[in-house]
């Protein structure tokens, strides 16, 4: 296992310790519940926005705690939803007079744990609601699964809600906003390599030297099909088409375009993908109002990338442009 790790069981807690050591003035770590929170939250007069999913997707979701983004996050072990109690304690800790919004990614484990935690918190009179994010178009036949997965589109839901919450939106207004963003955002990813959760110690799946997995999930779930690796432009073309067709996006749309690295792909390659995606947007008659190239939602060290399109309107453009901060310092 080619990882910087001490005891694999401590992977998540040590990462979180590192995160707060790097952000001592702004973040607090509550080890009992693996919770990271802003030191200045909860604040009355503002809905608290929280999220807790499996770890291994960093910077999602625990490194998205900051002004204009999440107020707290309760990450689980790598690829495992956080336990009910962690979710519940996170809700309780972030309780504010305007309520708490839990942004939940659509996975069986996340949903069950958050369902239980929210029931428990509501039974105590806490005003908490949840919203389920499911932007992955790769899952076509969802009659036999819990439906589409929540992947990189998650970022836009957090960003829009984070900005609106700072401006004083109510819990119900935020739920409507979630509905709108999630309804207009679509993602599909491609993996070139597998990934290795530290405790498992072995790759999640096997893949040939010349193969790619088209439509991969962020936990290494199989996608639509296995294929030979194609040139970058051909890969973009396929996932771009799948994403566009799904909504469908239409000529004249104003969009945000994200090329998200899955962890092991260098940023140079992401710009090669962006180049083609931007060309395709132009041909399709979309105006790229904002673009995002980098890592937003990863699968540990998987080599791969996903493409996300979000249809914009005045409200969303305004919210995406609002200032926000995350605990990863560039400067």
């Amino acid at each position, binding site marked *: 296992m080619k990882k910087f790790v001490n005891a694999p069981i401590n992977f998540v807690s040590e990462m979180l310790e590192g995160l707060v050591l790097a952000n001592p003035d702004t973040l607090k770590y509550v080890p009992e519940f693996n919770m990271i929170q802003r030191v200045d939250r909860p604040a009355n007069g503002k809905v608290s926005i929280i999220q807790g999913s499996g770890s291994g997707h960093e910077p999602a979701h625990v490194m998205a705690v900051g002004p204009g983004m999440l107020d707290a996050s309760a990450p689980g*072990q790598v*690829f495992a939803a956080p336990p009910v109690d962690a979710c519940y304690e996170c809700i309780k800790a972030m309780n504010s007079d305007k309520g708490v919004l839990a942004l939940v990614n659509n996975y069986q*484990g996340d949903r069950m744990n958050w369902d*239980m935690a929210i029931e428990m918190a509501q039974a105590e009179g806490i005003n908490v609601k949840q919203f389920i994010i499911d932007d992955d178009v790769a899952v076509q036949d969802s009659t*036999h699964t819990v439906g589409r997965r929540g992947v990189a589109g998650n970022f836009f839901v957090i960003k829009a809600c984070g900005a609106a919450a700072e401006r004083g939106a109510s819990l119900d207004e935020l739920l409507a906003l979630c509905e709108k963003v999630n309804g207009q955002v679509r993602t599909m990813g491609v993996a070139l390599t597998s990934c290795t959760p530290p405790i*498992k110690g072995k790759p*999640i799946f096997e893949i040939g030297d010349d193969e790619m997995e088209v439509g991969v999930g962020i936990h290494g779930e*199989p996608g639509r099909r296995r294929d030979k690796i194609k040139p970058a432009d051909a890969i973009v073309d396929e996932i771009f088409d799948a994403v566009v067709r799904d909504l469908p996006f239409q000529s004249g749309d104003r969009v945000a375009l994200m090329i998200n690295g899955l962890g092991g792909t260098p940023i140079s390659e992401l710009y090669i993908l962006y180049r083609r995606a931007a060309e395709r947007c132009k041909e399709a008659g979309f105006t790229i109002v904002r673009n995002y190239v980098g890592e937003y939602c990863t699968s540990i060290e998987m080599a791969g990338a996903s493409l996300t399109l979000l249809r914009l309107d005045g409200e969303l453009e305004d919210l995406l442009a609002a200032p926000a901060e995350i605990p990863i310092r560039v400067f």
Partner: protein
Amino acid sequence: MSEITIGAVERAVRATTTTVLRNEQYFSDLDGVAGDGDFGASLSAGFRVVDKDFAELDKSSIGALLLKISMIITRNVGGCSGPIWGTGFMRAAMLSKEKTSVTLAELEEMLTAAIDGIQQRGGAKLGDKTLLDALIPVRDTVKEHAASGTADTAIVLSDATAAAEEAIEHTKDMVARRGRQSFTGDRSIGSLDPGIVAIATILQDLCTEFGVSRAAKAA
């Protein structure tokens, strides 16, 4: 004796704890075939605490003990297994609150409550290739023996174990429809469901713990 005493429940909990911890790697490996390889680690995160805290747990009634187990699991186990096992123990606890022993019929009700809770929680049905495919036949076996008035719980345990074992093979070629495995779709065909294997393994070890001969079945 067709009553199950609090003492027997304590022994069963301890044996289950041993089974889970001893099979941590094996269960995770099974989950790694079509899932994400964390089932053993997740379950052990809970039962490791059960093991450590066992002496201090409230053993005033069967329900009190099971409730504690449920709480430890909800506190320490993430993924699908936390809500599934936590809900199961919780529902069984509700029906045995003040009891220091339960009849076979009461055991069947506890299992049914657990199964119903798990189904409400995760939406899985029989045939979705989850641990329900082991739990439901186990419950049905207990129900039959309760109805026919079987006096020897050893026979019940032995038959229940056989029912769980059959579920392993029976579901092997099914498509998983819940949890991480479900995303692998057809690729889950041919793999064993780790939850089902865990139920069967626990029951097998309970047979050993309680000295229940399984020779007849094995033949």
